[in-house]
């Protein structure tokens, strides 16, 4: 996925960009509305993350412009305001969703996923590893002609393992990457989800290996 991040605070922009890149996505950063308009007009972004208060104007005017130009790239607003009336006006202006700063990255990811699923279907979201096809947006897993619908947590876990194929993840790392701090997910829960994924992948060349005392790794034994 290719993201456009419009945020004037460089520190925050760097932190968000780093976190998005960690998930294997590409991020371009614009610090002003003028830059954002130029970037967005290329139309090559899957999603725009938009701050509202920008040095050269209000993010809402960008929203209006963007929609007036028939540009249908979904926009998620990063707002500092929590007043409901403000949120409503942003959705009215054509934002697809919003998160309130400071935000939980897994919530932002969940919202991005939901918006993308709603907007673009699954054209670019199919990953293929060995004999497995995996639609990361819709959560469809197709193993040797068998179609499986994944639950959200299974989906995110599999997506992480597939996009970082061959890389070892400790349980702790998986908890950090996949769950909100509010969720109280124990490391045992990871074992449950790994167990389910293994069951789904049964009969395929793609395997999730356990490295005792270290973690898990997805391999394509083709």
């Amino acid at each position, binding site marked *: 996925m290719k993201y456009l991040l419009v945020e004037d605070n460089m520190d925050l922009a760097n*932190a968000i960009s*780093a976190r998005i890149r960690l998930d294997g996505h590409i991020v371009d950063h614009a610090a002003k509305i003028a830059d954002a308009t130029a970037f967005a007009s290329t139309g090559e972004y899957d999603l725009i993350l938009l701050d509202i208060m920008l040095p050269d104007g209000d993010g809402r005017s960008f929203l209006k412009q963007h929609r007036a130009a028939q540009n249908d790239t979904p926009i998620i607003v990063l707002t*500092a305001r*929590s007043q409901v009336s403000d949120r*409503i006006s942003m959705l009215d202006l054509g934002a697809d969703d919003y998160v309130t700063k*400071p935000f939980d990255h897994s*919530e932002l990811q969940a919202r991005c*996923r939901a918006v993308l699923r709603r907007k673009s279907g699954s054209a670019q979201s199919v990953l293929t590893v060995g004999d497995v096809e995996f639609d990361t947006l819709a959560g469809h897993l197709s193993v040797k002609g068998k179609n499986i619908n994944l639950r959200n947590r299974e989906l995110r876990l599999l997506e992480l393992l597939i996009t970082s194929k061959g890389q070892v993840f400790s349980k702790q790392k998986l908890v950090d990457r996949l769950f909100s701090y509010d969720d109280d997910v124990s490391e045992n829960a990871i074992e449950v989800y790994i167990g389910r994924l293994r069951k789904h992948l049964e009969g395929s060349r793609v395997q999730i290996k356990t490295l005792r005392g270290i973690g898990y790794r997805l391999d394509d034994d083709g």
Partner: protein
Amino acid sequence: MTDDVNVSGSLRNRLALILTGGAAVLAAILFVVVRALATQVAQQGQDNILNASMSSILDTAIIRDGRVTLDFPYSSLSMLGTAADDRVFYAIYENGTLLSGYDKLQTPDTASPDQNQFTNAVFNGDPIRVATGARVLIGSDGPRTVSVSIAQTQDALSDSLSVISRNVALIGLGFFVLSSVLALWAASVTSGQLHRLTRSVTRRGPQDLSPVTKPVPSEMGPLVGSLNTFMSRLDHTLTQSEDFIAEAAHRIRTPLATVRSHAEATLQRVEHADNRAALQSMVRAIDESSRAAGQLLDHAMVTFRAENLETEDVNLVELLRELVQRMTPVADMKDITLTLKSEGPAILSGDAILLQNALRNLIDNALKYAPAETAVVIDVSTTPTVNISVLDGGPGFAPDEIATLSGRFVRGKDTGNKVGSGLGLTIAKEVTTAHGGTMSLHNRPEGGACVTLHF
């Protein structure tokens, strides 16, 4: 709203009072003047007849054989006959000596041949009108002055005067009643303009500070002008403080977001348990503070809007559908199925923003406390009244806390390390109360919490 206004009298009543008072005075003046004129005219009529009678008698005065004789015709007295049988008196003097008639008839001493005189007098206790005239007869022994007084009681006159008075009084009364009706009408038309202005200002919602543009009479122009100026000042102040709050929130929340994002990113790289715990408590502290700030602002907004409740027809099912769509990504993170059950539109007259805020808090709570892979159901029923229940499959409420949980800043003891401000249920309850409803908390027999809003 009028409770704290220092009301002194009513403009309408004052206007009506002045106008009816004026009408009463005018009616009284009308009565007095018309009655005086009528009296004068009636008196003139009596005087004319008395004068004719008196003159016809005086005309017959001649000197015969050195003595003054009068031979007055019957008609000279019969012409004085009236319906009221007024009595007629006469007195004839020659050089001040009574020749004939009633001695006690008081007649003016100054009867002159040039001028007939009319006077009022009292005879035997009755008011009379006396006409006196004089003639100078030239006899062989010089001029002799003969004077004749004819008097008549005034029964017929006072009869007709009382009839006239009654009629004039009736006319005056009619005039007064008609003027009073007109006065009341004028007063209510005038104050109606004020009422219309009041209504158009009162009907506005708390957010509407646009100037009054409806046409008003020129006398109300300055008042409306001041009102518009005042509202534009208020609007300016509100906009400024809104901008200030937005700016303040931006300045505080952006660095918090930076810290949180960095802490999260760092957490991905840190292995040591102590460092991880420190970073995690950092993230938690940021979430706590931003959650508290957000909820405090929301609570302030809810309190403000609840006091100035702006109502429109809100379809709660439509509102919930949007909320569910908005919160599904959060539910998905825990593989919670979030479903809305309804039988059709649920229309409630209320403030959509408040209702949305209240319901969002309830759904927020359910998603927060329900375990992964369970169901949260929002059940809307409309018979007989609107009821919304949010049911989850979580641990439910501690029975001894149910009564206190909706208090401000009250949180359950078993919330673990969930981030919360203790204001969610407070907001939901205040919004429900503002809409005339009640909120009840209970535990479902099959497990899990249920919060119901009854409207």
